[in-house]
């Protein structure tokens, strides 16, 4: 089983002599060799590879924090380990977006080549007797197929691709980046990026806005990023800005039911009953048999019950 709690940390050798016989699926367009040498190093105490790996990733993104300061947030003494969910939540609490990379070597190599160290979960044991370990991938050497990591007491572990692949895959190829709001990692997907920023909204609204803007610049047609922008603006009290963001979205994606619903709700809140009813009717027609349908029905009932404001300036 893939532990929700990661137990005692394992140990990576400084160097292993594993053969490079199995060829790693390198992305075609990454440099042959990468080492993010400015990534900080925190030799871990005892079992605390979680706090150490997190401090390493946060430090690389410009957040200076000691592993000891993170222990209370991510370390569970009874299990001598750190929850994956807590690793992500603590990243967000410290002002960074926890971007879960796609569970592929391609995504890992692209992220590192793009300058982002990646926190990875490894299983250094076997599936039935796991030894969980967090480390930070800081580079690779394509020739000889080596993966470079900050790990435990080892500042620069140089692991054969083969050994790394086994340990990483036994941990479900789990990994994340502590992302500075406003930067988009190389090799990211719009859906995973939007999901990561959505989780960050409550922690840092201005940061989430910057992240959504950067995402929309990269993926102009991704509706979730514009929806997120509108939601953060609305939460900040900027309803006009939110409405504009939704109209931008709908100009590109007229069938987006969530955006229609939210535009209808904003119109209704400022007294534009007829415009709101028109929008929610379109939302309903696009949301049939989707998980959003009951939410949109509820919005429609509320809009219907809300009186129009004759003084409102409506579209």
């Amino acid at each position, binding site marked *: *089983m*893939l532990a*929700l709690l990661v137990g005692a940390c394992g140990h990576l050798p400084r160097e292993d002599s594993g053969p490079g016989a199995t060829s790693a699926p390198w992305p075609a367009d990454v440099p042959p060799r990468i080492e993010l040498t400015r990534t900080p190093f925190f030799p871990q105490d005892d079992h605390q590879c979680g706090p150490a790996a997190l401090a390493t990733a946060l430090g690389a993104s410009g957040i200076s924090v000691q592993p000891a300061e993170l222990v209370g947030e991510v370390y569970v003494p009874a299990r001598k380990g750190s*929850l*994956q*969910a807590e690793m992500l939540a603590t990243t967000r609490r410290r002002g960074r977006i926890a971007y*879960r990379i796609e569970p592929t070597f391609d995504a890992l190599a692209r992220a590192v080549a793009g300058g982002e160290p990646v926190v990875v979960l490894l299983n250094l044991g076997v*599936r039935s007797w796991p030894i969980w370990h967090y480390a930070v991938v800081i580079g690779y050497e394509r020739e000889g197929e080596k993966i470079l990591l900050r790990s435990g007491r080892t500042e620069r572990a140089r692991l054969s691709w083969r050994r790394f692949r086994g340990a990483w895959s036994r941990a*479900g190829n*789990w990994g994340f980046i502590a992302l500075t709001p406003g930067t988009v990692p190389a090799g990211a997907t719009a*859906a995973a990026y*939007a*999901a990561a*920023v*959505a*989780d960050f*909204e409550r922690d840092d609204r201005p940061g989430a806005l910057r992240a959504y803007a950067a995402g929309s610049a990269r993926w102009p047609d991704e509706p*979730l990023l514009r*929806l*997120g922008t509108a*939601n953060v603006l*609305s939460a900040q009290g900027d309803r006009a800005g939110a409405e504009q963001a939704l109209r931008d979205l709908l100009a590109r994606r007229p069938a987006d039911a*969530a955006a229609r*619903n*939210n535009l209808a*709700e*904003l119109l209704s809140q400022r007294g534009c009953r007829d415009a709101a009813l028109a929008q929610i009717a379109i939302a309903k027609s696009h949301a049939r048999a*989707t*998980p*959003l349908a*009951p*939410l*949109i*029905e*509820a*919005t*429609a*009932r*509320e*809009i219907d019950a809300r009186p129009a404001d004759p003084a409102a300036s409506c579209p």
Partner: protein
Amino acid sequence: MIMSFRGSVVALTLAAFVTAVVPAPARAALIDTNTAVAATQRAANLARVDSVLARAEVAQRLTDLGVSPQSAHERAAALTDAELANFATQLENAPAGGDILAVIGIVFVVLMILEFTGVIDIFKKV
């Protein structure tokens, strides 16, 4: 093969649980971004499953076993977000050299469909 498949299903279910989005109650308001993300992911996963169910070889094999592809779709649509995500991922990672519909692949994929959609439980009871 099936045991290890089940083991990995359990593992993935646990892993997905960490990030599972709690279904929002049906209340009127702005649809928050997390809810929209979950709905979008769900739609994409269902489309991935349906694209496999729609393939003639799979549909035929399911029909041979007395399961209509339509009922398989309905059962898939009734899965939780996490279950559906696992199902779609498992289908995509199914073995048999890239094309899951090589001969062994069809059997495997159909077993997977039966397992995930709960039809296999019916077989056990017979």
